[in-house]
């Protein structure tokens, strides 16, 4: 029994780990009498794996058998891989026992497709239904909706799950069809639409009577694989921006392509996952969601790919020196947000504190502003350095990207003594 469960758990965790999302935020749930658990609203990480990713939910597959043969997926049917399937009650018990020990915030359930999408989806719904109704589980539940599943099942899932998600996987349909001939974008966008409808209907119902059931209160998310196909960052970010325009879409995740099936000739040969590019995409995503940037300010036809050397906010500032320097004592919030080296938190601190007295660069430094970057873009009437419009964007870029020498290393500009 013991060895068997451990084996299953490891097999199915291995199969599920490439999914990026592990958020447990976006909704609150109080404990109910006789029930177990609560959901806090701000998301809690309970551990971090050695690759530095947060472990918040028990991220697991119901089964890793699959009828599809998608080139990018480790669980494709042509892979010779250890397969396993959880029974519904096994998974329910595991979730509850892990939860009671404060290992996890809840469950992230995903699955390979067996028989038909509906058949698979129905078994997944049974797991989360049992958790919510039989065990009165109030922890967080994120469920993957299977592409091609019926509206009725998506709707039932939304009654028990906090968040639903459908992965786009490949940003353009043409490339998706190349790597996963059995799939198309319609099968992804349809369930997305079902979820959106469910969320909107439930919100409207709940305005009329508060007892109306909640539907996926934490909305939906999706994921794209980066670097497996030839899309530019512009194509990727425009897709994200369009998705964020939909009312229930909370997060788009980017997953740097890891060559899990390197034998497949449709896939590029890469040595290392494109981690820097992935990071830049997340930074751009942040600019869209929290910094009031429009997508065509970040990437356009002239700059279809993000600069890997500098972050997208700095890149924007260097392309637009005419907006700088910004006077931190006068400029409005949205302009302060655009200064490289100032984040959302420090922008708010600046707005609050400058009511009392003029802020000087010492004050800014103490508040946690990265002056190394910000000094070229601000003015508070006392700075000695030349700002970006007095010098040039090229100069600022050069200074900011210069590599730091390791401690104790000789300065390469220093002449060497030739006698030894």
């Amino acid at each position: 029994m013991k060895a068997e469960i451990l084996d299953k758990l490891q097999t199915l965790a291995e199969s599920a780990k490439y999914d990026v999302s592990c958020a447990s935020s976006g909704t609150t749930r109080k404990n109910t009498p006789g029930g177990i658990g609560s959901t806090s609203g701000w998301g809690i990480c309970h551990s971090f794996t050695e690759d530095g990713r947060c472990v918040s939910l028990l991220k697991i597959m119901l089964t890793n058998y699959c009828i599809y043969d998608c080139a990018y997926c480790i669980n494709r049917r042509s892979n010779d891989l250890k397969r396993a399937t959880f029974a519904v009650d096994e998974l329910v018990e595991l979730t509850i026992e892990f939860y009671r020990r404060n290992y996890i915030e809840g469950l992230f359930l995903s699955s390979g497709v067996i028989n038909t999408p509906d058949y698979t989806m129905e078994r997944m719904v049974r797991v989360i239904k049992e958790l919510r109704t039989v065990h009165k589980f109030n922890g967080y539940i994120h469920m993957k909706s299977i592409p091609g599943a019926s509206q009725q099942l998506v709707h039932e899932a939304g009654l028990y799950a906090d968040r639903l998600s459908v992965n786009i996987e490949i940003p353009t349909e043409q490339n998706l069809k190349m790597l996963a001939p059995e799939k198309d974008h319609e099968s992804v966008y349809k369930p997305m639409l079902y979820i959106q409808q469910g969320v909107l209907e439930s919100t409207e119902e709940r305005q009329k009577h508060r007892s109306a059931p909640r539907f996926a209160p934490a909305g939906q998310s999706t994921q794209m694989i980066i670097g497996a196909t030839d899309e530019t960052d512009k194509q990727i970010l425009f897709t994200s921006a369009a998705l964020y325009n939909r009312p229930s879409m909370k997060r788009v995740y980017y997953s740097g392509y890891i060559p899990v099936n390197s034998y497949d000739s449709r896939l590029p040969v890469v040595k290392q996952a494109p981690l820097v590019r992935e990071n830049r995409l997340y930074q751009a995503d942040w600019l869209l969601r929290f910094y009031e940037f429009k997508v065509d300010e970040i990437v356009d036809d002239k700059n279809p790919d993000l600069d890997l050397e500098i972050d997208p906010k700095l890149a924007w500032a260097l392309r637009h020196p005419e907006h700088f320097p910004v006077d931190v004592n006068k400029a409005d919030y949205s302009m302060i947000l655009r200064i490289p080296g100032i984040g959302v938190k420090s922008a708010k601190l600046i707005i609050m504190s400058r009511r009392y007295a003029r802020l000087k660069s010492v004050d800014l430094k103490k508040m946690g502003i990265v002056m190394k970057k910000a000094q070229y873009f601000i003015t508070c009437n006392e700075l000695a350095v030349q700002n970006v419009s007095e010098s040039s964007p090229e100069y600022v870029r050069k200074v900011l990207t210069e590599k730091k020498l390791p401690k104790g290393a000789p300065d390469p500009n220093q002449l060497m003594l030739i006698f030894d």
Partner: protein
Amino acid sequence: MIIFHYDKTLEGLLTAVFDAYNRKTFPDKLLGLNQPEPLFVEESYIVLTQEDKSARVWKGLEQTLEPNSLNMITYVWLSELPGSDELIFRYIRKAFDSKKSIETNYADDDVLQMQKLAQKVNKEKHRLIEFVRFQKAADDIFFAPVSPDHNALPLTLEHFKDRFADQKWVIYDTKRNYGFYYDMKNITEMTLDSTDLFPKGKLDENLMAEDEKLYQDLWKGYFKSMTIKERINPKLHRQHLPKRYWKYLTEKQ
């Protein structure tokens, strides 16, 4: 230099504020009751903690400050860092003396410092909420040892009470040698006579519930499988999961 001696409790500190306004002399330094004084003391005063005085100061603060800033005082007190009491004293004084609210003036050193320390303690609170690991004992009590840098355990009780309402639990601060026991109704503070029950942070195997070892192994196995080897990044790992917490983390044993 004016010195106040007090009993190093929050009530004592608030009483000191009361006495200072009463005497119209304000301390340059706060010391414990038996702490030696520096040279050249101009005046030395011993504060006798009195509940009615501290309550009046607290009430005054409630009228002056936003609830958030009031919380900040508690948090900074729980930081237990040297000098945090003097910081609170200066902050309270500024709050009382200023005609305008000082609470969002982050260009003021003390206000910014208060906010930074409170944030530190808040971080510790969240880390406790994240990294507490319960081990189920044979008598069905879930037991978790912790040793936070700041005394943040009391701040987490509401969270754990709401979340684990239907199980008995103990969370024990091994560094300060006290803890809290929840019996599915109330939370009571407790002190253990000996800490032999959990050598090296683990519950003795004889005291464990039958299936406890199984779930610990399952969790460890799961944790190992989740790592993507192509992306291993030990620096990031330690940044999110500082080494000082590893002692009590099941998956890092």
